[in-house]
């Protein structure tokens, strides 16, 4: 193995790498895959650069993995790299999900299809709830963050206020308090 930094991938290669990751990523854990692919195996990025990107991808709104695709794509291939990586993670998986749903619609005449899908939905809600509980566990055990969490829940789930205003108000308040605490 040569010690020199490998040639950065072309936009087309980035598209293919992210397409493969997008099509094979089931149920989360994506950042681990990306770390293995770009830092450990291909050695295209330093671990620090990767982790900086990851914390930004998590802090900014947007799906973490699509944010990471744009971050990595930009670092490795500038504007075209970012566009190619983003298209790679979104477009093939978007086409596949439409195909899968069409397959389910074709089976919609059978009562069993709807029943099986309802069972899948229940298990999938477990996925959402466990993610929520994991996120709740990472909230600091102090009155203010806990109050923000509870207020957000009540506003969205019970009062059914529009999410965007709730998040804007609760988010900026909470970020401002975190910032002033340093």
């Amino acid at each position, binding site marked *: 193995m040569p010690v020199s930094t490998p040639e950065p991938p072309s936009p087309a290669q980035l598209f293919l790498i992210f397409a493969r990751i997008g099509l*094979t990523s089931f149920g989360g854990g994506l950042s681990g895959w990306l770390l293995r692919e770009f830092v450990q195996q291909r050695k295209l990025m330093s671990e620090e650069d990767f982790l900086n990107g990851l914390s930004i991808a*998590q802090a900014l709104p947007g799906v973490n993995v699509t944010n990471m695709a744009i971050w990595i794509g930009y670092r490795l291939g500038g504007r075209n790299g970012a566009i190619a990586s983003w298209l790679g993670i*979104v477009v093939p998986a978007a086409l596949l999900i439409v195909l899968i749903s069409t397959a389910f619609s074709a089976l919609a005449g059978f009562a069993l299809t709807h029943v099986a899908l309802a*069972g*899948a939905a229940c298990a999938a809600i477990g*996925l959402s709830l466990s993610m929520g509980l994991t996120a709740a566990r*990472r909230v600091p055990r102090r009155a203010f963050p806990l109050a923000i969490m509870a*207020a957000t829940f009540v506003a969205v789930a019970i009062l059914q206020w529009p999410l965007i205003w*709730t*998040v804007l108000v609760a988010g900026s308040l909470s970020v401002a308090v975190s910032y002033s605490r340093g």
Partner: protein
Amino acid sequence: MPAIALSILVVFLPLSLVTIGGGQSAVADMHRQIVDLHGWMTASQFVDAFAISRLAPGPGSLLATLIGWRIAGPWGALAATIGIFGPTALLIYGVAHIWSRFEGARLLKALERGLRPVAAGTILAASYVLLASLDSGWIGRGLALASTALLMATPINPLLLIGGGAGCFALLHLVGLA
């Protein structure tokens, strides 16, 4: 682009900016707007689409693509995809662009910490809304809670769990219980 696709775009564009963490946080509001406000889908169609989006690989926000597809075909899918991914893509692109000159460590930490309780609240709200719209009663809620416990306690593959949920219901149906 047909008028309905434009309306779909208008629904998803702002939602893009509140998908903190994963796509989960926006699901409650997607439900509110798509089912309650516009009546584009029934609650059970929405839950079906949610299940398919969890079964399929790729970013969880592809639920939006699927909803757009179900409402208005290819144009709907395109509008929803651009809406849910577009604004945040531009945002992270901008940050990646200025990152080298951006001494933002403290702000970044405040963002990450400050958004944590908000993300937890919205994801829990999404779970609540989905649980409430299940039409399979206590068996379904029990299965959802059991799957939550399994995910928290074991390193089980989520896809296996979702397949198991489908199999479980199919079996109950075949023996005449559900």
